[in-house]
């Protein structure tokens, strides 16, 4: 090993960042953990709320989603869930798609589709919550 002074081709900034060839560090991992922690109470709330609404008529479901607390939690649930799903799908694509072009296409596609889905869901909740 040569000494770090003088012979290294790595710039001081690159060495300080400490990221290497991938150009990213722990951000993806951290986001996955953060969204998973948020989803524990949100998912439990949603599943048991939906379960207690099983067989209910339209007016009851609408009245439930129109409550400010339900609408707020539903919007947060949707946003965090789509974020978490994309983080997971990205890892799956990275692991199993071995062509660089196809991998990148799949990752871009899932991100676009997730934003579309999340906006559709949030707009639906808002329409119910604000539409009267």
């Amino acid at each position, binding site marked *: 090993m040569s000494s770090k002074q003088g012979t290294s081709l790595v710039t001081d900034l690159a060495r300080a960042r400490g990221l290497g060839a991938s150009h990213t560090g722990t951000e993806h991992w951290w986001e996955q953990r953060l969204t998973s922690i948020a989803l524990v109470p949100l998912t439990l709330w949603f599943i048991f709320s939906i*379960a*207690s609404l099983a067989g209910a008529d339209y007016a009851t479901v609408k009245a439930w989603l129109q409550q400010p607390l339900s609408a707020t939690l539903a919007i947060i649930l949707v946003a965090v869930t789509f974020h978490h799903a994309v983080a997971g*799908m990205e890892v799956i694509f990275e692991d199993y798609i071995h062509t660089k072009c196809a991998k990148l296409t799949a990752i871009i596609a899932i991100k676009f589709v997730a934003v579309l889905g999340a906006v559709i869901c949030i707009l639906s909740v808002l329409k119910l919550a604000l539409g009267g």
Partner: protein
Amino acid sequence: MSNSSSRPLSPFLSVYKLEPSMIMSGLHRITGFALTIGLVLLTWWLVAAAAGPDYFAVIQGLLGTWIGKLALFGWTFSIFYHLGTGLRHLAFDTGRCLTKDGIVSSGWTVVVAAVGLTIVAWIIAFIA
């Protein structure tokens, strides 16, 4: 292979005996994938609710068939399983349960909790 003596092997799945912890890890990913597909259903359900009573009745009718109920049952179990193994992974991240006994016992705890919570959710659904 001529050089297969005592050298460490790359982690090819085929060289390992299938262990419960491997199945649990695989199922965490498979349920995560399935739940992502399930988001199409969630989106459809919310759109139907926003569209009005007539369209909402269509999706509620579809979900009420035995195929719909089966899909919802699988969805419920997948959520509770993925949530449980997710919490187990968060515990692993803090260095907990990373012994042989800890991995086995936390694994069984997750399986039992997932089955239990699925049954509780469906009891609530049938009573409601």
